[in-house]
């Protein structure tokens, strides 16, 4: 068991590698819970519900043909493929793949720093957790 450095992370959106202008990726994995407690029980009981997954990604805003605007912002409101490799790229390393709805895109322009962006991705269906070939 060892720590993993975040700089190795790989993310792609619509099959395009956006890693080089991305510096944060936070996955949120949830499972619905349904109350199934009956009278007389001493504690709550729950039934398993649907899964819900979302990701928040962000980084430095870049220009050009393979820019943030083209490769992320213009995908808002569409469903595209998403892949997240939290330990980087390599045979046997984990990967999460699925289809996401690009829900929001935000960019900010601080006067004394470079332009930054964030985007919220909502998973449609479930993510597939596997290993890289």
């Amino acid at each position, binding site marked *: 068991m060892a720590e993993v450095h975040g700089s190795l*992370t790989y993310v792609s959106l619509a099959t395009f590698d956006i*890693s*080089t202008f*991305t*510096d944060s*990726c936070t996955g949120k994995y949830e499972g619905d819970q349904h109350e199934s407690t009956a009278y007389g029980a001493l504690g709550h009981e729950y039934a398993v519900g649907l899964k819900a997954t979302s990701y928040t990604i962000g*980084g*430095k805003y870049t220009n050009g043909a393979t820019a943030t605007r083209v490769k992320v912002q213009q995908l808002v409101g569409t469903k595209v493929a998403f892949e997240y490799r939290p330990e980087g790229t390599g045979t046997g390393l984990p990967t999460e793949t699925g289809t996401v709805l690009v829900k929001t895109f935000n960019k900010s322009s601080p006067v*004394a720093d470079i332009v930054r962006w964030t985007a919220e991705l909502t998973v449609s269906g479930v993510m597939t957790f596997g290993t890289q070939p």
Partner: protein
Amino acid sequence: MNINNVQEEIGATIVAADAGIRVTPWDADSVNPPAVLFELPEEYDFDLTYGRGSDEFTLPIVLLLGKTDARSARKALGAYLDGSGPKSLKAIVDSSNTNTYVTCDTVKVRKASDIGPYRVGSILYLGATFETRITGPGS
């Protein structure tokens, strides 16, 4: 992103601006002001994005004018410290849509500090250090 290449390109940009500023090697024994010389960055920040996408560092650009007791040096300093104008070092060096660099992505003079005397050999020159933030590709 190679700091030597970045320094050379910024130096060429300063010379091309024709503001009367000479670019002096950092190890020069003497200077012929007005002149700039590039100090080494204190730090070089790697991995600002995933996949070796982006690195950053702050490049100190030292501007030296005439001797500290020369009235002309003090008068000239104002024009070089000005945020705009033909002699404004910030206006000359900052990257923009019309002033682009190939050795890095962005060049931004963030502030001028240590405004005062600088010793070169036995001579005190009036000068200032322009802290210039450089961003560029990591690989």
